């Protein structure tokens, strides 16, 4: 084995140590600034409410949010509603990604189909899918089904367009290479087109987490049975702004966690290669 693949001996010069130190300091400065901003917003919010600059009944305040979280945790409803929203989102974006990929495969397989369907996909992509909410509610009914269909609808069109583009961007010369070995279309799909699209599929997954969550929340607004979307709309209707703010904050945390999970999977996957 040649030397260039060996790990170099760990012995840094003073200059390098200085470089590392500066790099670390810059990174810490960013981190600390982020924390300061978050703390400042919550502190100012609390202070403003306490000093009656703002009306806590309308604007709520961090201590009230905390109280709401505690009381909702006690009867377990917080976990039920958060769980429902996360569950619906996961089902929505997984089915959106899988179905979208399957349709993209059909489009890749038949250029004729792709060319025929192109204008329809463009219009469907431009159409705000949330406008279809009431129709879905009537057709599917006021159940979890409606919410998942909503989440699916939001993510599927983008998935089809992204994955199909990724299939088309597959290196022609790589396909040509397989053809010289006498590869069939199925073999080309399995051996080169799909594996080379996996990074794009994962980045589509990342987009879909966000889109499906929009679908789920809109669905929960309409169906109004359970979930964070339901808590938000219910809180708004009975004027419990503490409940609305709490739900929004928890929704933000849940969204971030789901996104980070996909990002983590992506990192694992890239490392594996």
């Amino acid at each position, binding site marked *: 084995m040649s030397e260039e693949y060996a790990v170099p001996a760990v012995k840094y010069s003073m200059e390098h140590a200085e470089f590392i130190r500066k790099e670390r300091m810059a990174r810490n400065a960013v981190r600390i600034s982020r924390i300061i901003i978050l703390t400042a917003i919550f502190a100012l919010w609390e202070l403003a409410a306490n000093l009656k600059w703002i009306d806590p009944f309308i604007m709520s305040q961090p201590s009230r949010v905390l109280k709401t979280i505690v009381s909702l945790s006690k009867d377990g409803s917080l976990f039920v509603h958060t769980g429902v929203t996360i569950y619906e989102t996961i089902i929505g974006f997984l089915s959106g990604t899988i179905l979208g990929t399957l349709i993209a495969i059909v489009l890749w397989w038949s250029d004729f189909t792709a060319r025929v369907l192109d204008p329809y996909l463009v219009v469907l992509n431009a159409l705000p899918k949330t406008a279809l909410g009431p129709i879905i509610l009537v057709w599917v009914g006021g159940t979890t089904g409606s919410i998942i269909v909503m989440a699916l609808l939001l993510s599927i069109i983008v998935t089809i367009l992204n994955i199909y583009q990724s299939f088309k961007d597959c290196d022609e010369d790589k396909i040509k290479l*397989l053809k010289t*070995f006498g590869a069939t279309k199925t073999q080309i799909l399995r051996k080169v087109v799909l594996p080379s699209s996996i990074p794009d599929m994962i980045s589509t997954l990342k987009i879909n987490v966000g889109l499906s969550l929009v679908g789920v929340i809109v669905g929960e607004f309409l169906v109004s049975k359970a979930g964070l979307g339901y808590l938000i709309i219910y809180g708004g209707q009975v004027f419990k702004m503490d409940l609305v703010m709490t739900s929004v904050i928890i929704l933000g945390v849940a969204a971030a966690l789901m996104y980070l999970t996909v990002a983590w999977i992506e990192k694992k996957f890239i490392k594996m290669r």
Partner: protein
Amino acid sequence: MDKVVELKNVTMNYHTLDGETQAIKNLSLDIRKGEFVSIVGPSGCGKSTLLSLISGLIKPSSGEILVDNEPVTGPSPNVGYMPQRDHLFEWRTILKNTTIGLEIQNKMNRESLKNAERLLDEYGLGDFKNYYPKQLSGGMRQRAALIRTLAANPEILLLDEPFSALDYQTRLAISEEIWLIIKKEEKTAVLVTHDIAEAVSMSDRVIVLTQRPAEVKSEHNIDLTTGKCKTPINCREAPEFRVYFNKIWKELDVHV
């Protein structure tokens, strides 16, 4: 000697909505068994088209192409193709890359796998068979690409400017290595290149093509006197090398 590839009056036209381009016109040539033939020509003259035709990826507009005296109807396991860049699949290990042809031709068995491993061992990649392509140098990757072609055990190798993506030093070294491998495995080779020195040093015969539409302009049987083994690098030192080089250079008639 037996003819393994025969092109008879081959014409190839490309069609687009804007019009029609004649890439190859009435071209005839033969490749004999065990020969190393280079095809040189001005850039864009249809050299690569010629290889696509022989490999059966595209059909000629008219004329006939025979491989082993059989008309070409599609890709044949007797013909191996090596592209310009290595095109190793970055998600596969080197070993898995070299067996892709076997997988596609459903020829994966213990024997063929062993043969692929033998080729890797013999040509200095044995220690790297579980590495991923990005961990290898350009020259090593190109060698792996050749082994991928050889693992499917073709009789004829079509080399489509296989060294053009490499830097000059690597290029000299790898063309020497690949020449040795091809000779050792006793394959017939057709090399398309725009590098005259590469063509003269590696080949038994050099075919010069005209501007598009490509026709055969001339053929040169390369006969170099070297005291040592006739490897490409030794051939570059032969006294006749310069003569062939100049002759072909003039025939290419390059105007900038």
